[in-house]
């Protein structure tokens, strides 16, 4: 009987740990460039992400060819000239919450968090730190974050001809509706 209790306790612990991983394959990433002559916005709604609540580890990946622009020419230049999506098809972030204890995944609420890690884009990997919120509601987690990157940090050059149309400073907005990862 005692052994049965131990097995049950271990199973419960395993189950709780397993439920603390959340994922999405349909997250949204937007990027926004504000330049004197033009504002450029693109959206990708097939972002894959996993958040491990027990360790605080967080990872997401974006297929670069999945960004949609309002104008075809912008989309072509983005893929062919700037991010070279044929050569570098994915952008990936691997990091963790700086304070994993800041979020109670079993209790509904909105928690302010900071994510720190390494963002790989265009073949370059750099340290990134971004503030965000995690909203826990009914077992699901909604993650939002907004941060800026410099294209020059990722070896993406802006030709002099389009300097007034494309900013070196890009605002990245992330929206993730994460559900519990079973198994």
């Amino acid at each position, binding site marked *: 009987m005692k052994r049965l209790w131990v097995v049950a306790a271990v199973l419960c612990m395993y189950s709780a740990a397993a439920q603390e991983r959340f*994922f999405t*394959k349909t997250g949204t990433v937007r990027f926004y460039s504000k330049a004197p002559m033009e504002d450029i916005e693109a959206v*990708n709604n*097939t972002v894959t992400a996993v958040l491990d609540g027990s360790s605080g580890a967080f990872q997401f990946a974006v297929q670069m060819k*999945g960004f949609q622009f309002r104008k075809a020419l912008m*989309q072509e230049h983005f893929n062919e000239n700037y991010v070279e999506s044929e050569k570098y098809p994915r952008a990936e972030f691997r990091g963790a919450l700086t304070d994993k204890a800041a979020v109670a995944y079993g209790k509904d609420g909105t928690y302010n968090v900071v994510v720190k890690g390494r963002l790989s884009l265009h073949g370059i990997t750099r340290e990134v730190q971004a503030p965000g919120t995690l909203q826990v509601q009914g077992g699901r987690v909604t993650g939002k974050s907004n941060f800026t990157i410099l294209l020059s940090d990722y070896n993406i050059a802006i030709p002099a001809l389009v300097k007034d149309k494309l900013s070196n400073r890009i605002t990245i907005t992330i929206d993730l509706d994460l559900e519990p990862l079973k198994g």
Partner: protein
Amino acid sequence: MKRIIRLFLGLLLVTGLILLWQYNRKPPELSAAAPDKITTATALTQNFDADATAADKDLQGKIIRITGQVQRVDTGGAVVLAGDGASEVVVGLDTRHLSALKQITAGKLVVLQGKYTGYQKSGSADDLLAALGTTVHISAAGLSSEN
């Protein structure tokens, strides 16, 4: 001389109009285009599970018409189709076709058409995304007229 000036101005106007059209051109409506490949979500993911590199190479730049059972729908504009086993196909809708989401519900068999944009497959042990199995990505999609 007047004729040459008129011809020059005419050419200048035509060139300007072409450049303006080129600059403001919208991305093509892929759901209405002729597909390069017609397949099912199950067959597509089976190909990636068998040899992802070859399947990826085969689909580069292609417009795919895909039939599959809807697993999940995200109001942000993406649909997840059930693949083989744990594998899935994620179809991001063209932002001009988000109203199509009203017609797509979990469990329904749908035909979607868009551009192949890449895949995600189990990686190293420290790869958190490895737990998600194989995922094939299609973007800028819409409901095919076959529905």
